[in-house]
């Protein structure tokens, strides 16, 4: 893993040098900030079922931000290298496919986690601004953030895989959006089309259900193992695809 850190440093540097991190950050904080403010106002006016963390992490706005931020962070990872031809100089340097895939994924993941960092202060900011809602306990915030971290890793690995398959960033982003959209609505699809045999599977992989559990403080080891292994599997597939490019 000798080349991992120089590669990681370059990848993270790219996000900030090209302003992608700032643009995505502003967009993300606007959506999540607006969503939290809206919830805080409603909770101050009327009692709602569940506390603010639970409602926030299961809201439409939460999933919208996840769906949009993922392709924005991952679409360029390989598509840009493929389009510019820099993949040729990169892969003829003494680096392994594992190092390249892992460095690119880690860079996107760190930026993703960095985006979520300010949201930890939302409840305190809401209270400071006069919000009339109970501050969620630390354990609930931690389990919710763990859910974000696990689901985020899975989403980003899907985005990375989409990026490795094309040389056009827009195509990578659209494919990633379509795959994640279908993934999120898998439960709805099985019900709508009466796919009874697929219902248990759709229920097992349903990210909204997992996030609801995390946001209510339920830590199911099966869910944690599922996201961890799905992410590893997708990254492993990405390294095999990168290797297979040499034999194409």
């Amino acid at each position: 893993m000798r080349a991992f850190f120089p590669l990681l440093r370059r990848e993270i540097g790219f996000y900030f040098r090209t302003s992608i991190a700032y643009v995505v950050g502003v967009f993300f904080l606007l959506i999540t900030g607006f969503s939290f403010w809206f919830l805080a106002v409603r909770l101050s006016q009327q009692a709602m079922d569940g506390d603010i963390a639970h409602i926030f992490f299961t809201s439409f706005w939460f999933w919208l931000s996840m769906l949009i931020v993922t392709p924005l962070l991952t679409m360029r990872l390989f598509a840009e290298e493929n389009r510019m031809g820099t993949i040729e100089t990169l892969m003829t340097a003494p680096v392994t496919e594992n190092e390249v895939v892992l460095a690119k994924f880690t860079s996107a993941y760190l930026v993703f986690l960095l985006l979520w960092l300010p949201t930890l202060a939302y409840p305190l900011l809401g209270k400071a601004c006069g919000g009339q809602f109970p501050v969620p306990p630390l354990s609930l915030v931690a389990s919710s953030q763990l859910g974000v971290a696990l689901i985020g890793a899975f989403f980003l690995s899907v985005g990375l895989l989409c990026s490795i398959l094309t040389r056009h960033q827009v195509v990578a982003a659209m494919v990633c959006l379509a795959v994640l959209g279908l993934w999120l609505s898998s439960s709805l699809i099985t019900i709508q089309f009466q796919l009874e045999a697929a219902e248990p599977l759709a229920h097992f992989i349903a990210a909204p259900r997992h996030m609801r559990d995390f946001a209510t403080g339920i830590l199911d080891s099966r869910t944690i193992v599922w996201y961890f292994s799905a992410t590893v599997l997708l990254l492993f597939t990405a390294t095999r695809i990168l290797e297979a490019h040499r034999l194409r």
Partner: protein
Amino acid sequence: MPLSNDILIRVNNLTRRFARCEALAAVSFEAVRGEIIGLLGPNGSGKTTTLRILSGYLAPTCGEVEMAGMDITAHSLDVRKKIGYLPESVPLYPEMKVEEYLLFRGRIKGLKKTRLFSRLRDVVDQCGLGEVLHRTIGNLSRGFRQRTGLADCLIHEPEILLLDEPLVGLDAAQTHLIRELLLDLREGRTLLFSTHMLCEAERLSNRVLILNGGRTAALDAPDALLRAARRLQADIQAPLGDVKNALESLEGGREARLSEKDDGWTRLSLPADGAPLPAGLEEWAARRQWPLRNLAYDAPTFDELFLRLTTLPPKVRNPKRRKSP
């Protein structure tokens, strides 16, 4: 006879097939330390594919490639430490500064801190990058981008340099600078570069490998190829059959080429090496009372020779992929 550890590139029956065609077919050659080999050929002849395979970017379909004594497939990572590869389009990260880019490339090539900075200074001096060291790559001219790519190739002091069209798009001064640099770089290294600039290949290379349709059309020193292509020619006023019968008594006659001209004369062409002197040919014709005209040496230029060698049938299509009628 070169020592075995002096042979840095050994290619044996290298073949590469793509979905619709055979880009390389049974190409074989060796290159020793200190040698510059020019890779020539028309567009689509397999130059870039050869360099990509030798750099480890593409895998060969069959055949063996040994770089610095190691098999390219089995020891890909170790081989990549020994080579510097510059692709044709000089792909660089446009958002990075030159210094930043070279340091990044040095780090992923495994250079430790002290050596990295000393090598950076060396390659910046060698490639004349001092004035653009702190400039963003995206704002550089083609020439400086080329030099940055070359500096990247050199930063880890590779034994083998593979350069795809290193002289393309450069002005006269930059071409001169890169040419001088390549000549300096040959010391202790093997350099394989592709080009369409035949005069540069002739000037720089110890040997040239000419590819046509993925096959080896010629492999030798430019001088040797030109010598072999030099022929003694004359028109003889005699029927072709008679000239053919009389060739046995002519020195070098076995390798003669005959062709009938429209006006009844016969064109005789002999390899210059081993052919009689013009006086000898005149005497041979005079003995048979055959008038001669246009007696002269045909010495093609390197460009003419290249054209002759590369106007052969196009590349072989992959028969497996053909649709049945």
